[in-house]
């Protein structure tokens, strides 16, 4: 029992996400395109925040899933921002070129936004509702994760 608890405490993503139900911290970051994007400007729309790194094995698959959802639900009010937390912006840009998506890919080399959102595992996916509250979090990505994530997206879009 104790061993299981210790293991749960040691595995990133095993504990409940602390910011769930709280207001999403606002930020402005520069995208790989050179344009700056601010989260607060998306108020009134459901936003997917996808934190990723270029050395993360599942990040490409997750970004692809988010891209599919945005293509389908953008007209209903879904937006996405991918936030890269690499130290090296060049590696991030290279990864972004290899995995093209139709939404802004933001760079957070100083990791201020990563710290504000308590990113402890990659890939990490957050859903922010139309009022700016973090409503759902996933701190890993498996093959069956997409269905659960899409169900949450639909629920938030219907609100």
């Amino acid at each position, binding site marked *: 029992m104790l061993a299981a608890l210790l293991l749960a405490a040691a595995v990133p993503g095993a504990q409940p996400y602390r910011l769930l139900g709280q207001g999403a911290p606002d930020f*402005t970051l520069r995208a790989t395109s050179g*344009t700056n*994007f601010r989260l607060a*400007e998306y108020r009134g729309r459901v936003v997917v925040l996808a934190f990723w790194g270029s050395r993360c094995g599942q990040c490409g698959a997750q970004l692809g899933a988010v891209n599919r959802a945005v293509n389908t639900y953008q007209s209903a009010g879904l937006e996405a921002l991918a936030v890269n937390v690499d130290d090296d912006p060049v590696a991030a840009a290279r990864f972004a070129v290899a995995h093209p998506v139709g939404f802004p890919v933001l760079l957070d080399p100083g990791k201020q936004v990563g710290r504000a959102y308590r990113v402890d595992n990659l890939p990490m996916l957050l859903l922010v509702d139309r009022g700016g509250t973090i409503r759902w979090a996933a701190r890993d990505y498996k093959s069956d994760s997409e269905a659960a994530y899409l169900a949450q997206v639909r629920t938030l879009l219907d609100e």
Partner: protein
Amino acid sequence: MKHSSPLPALLLALLAPLAAIAAEPAATETPAATPPAVAAPAAPAAAAGAAATPDTRALDEEIQSIKKDAVDLNRDLFVLEEELLFPANTQVAVFLSMDVGDFFALDTVELRIDDKQVAKHLYTPREAEALLKGGVQRLYLGNLKVGNHEVVALFSGKGPQGQDYTRGATVKFEKSVGAKYLELKISDRQAKHQPEFEIRDWE
């Protein structure tokens, strides 16, 4: 061969005056120009609506009053918080404004006071557009003691030919007792086809 019976039409003709009589009281309550035969079935619903309206209106007025109280309270608390955190005798505020902007597309402003970075802001296209439309942004609000101080502002963006462009502006000022307001102003110098950056006392 099928014959249509005249009985339903006859019953309808007989019942129509009765329906009109039944509808008369309702018609006096709601002087709408609806035919009595139509008003008759709507009368109970209209009466129910008329009974519910004053209650709903009172509730709505109460909600609006509570909302207004909440907004007033929030404003008072905001003013109180600012007065406590930034007392008038030490308060320093720095504002940013833009004029025209043909020769400079704003991207970042970094503000340093006495060689210490106190603010850095990345501007989205919407924010830059708001500034160009006459908006003024409060970039920094803080406290400074009485004496001499130096403010340095670094502006980054795209220059007249779309190239990366960074310029700085510096001002030394003496802080006396009382609030100090400074303005960072970005404007176009038409004669030189260059942007101009200045820091001046808020007027």
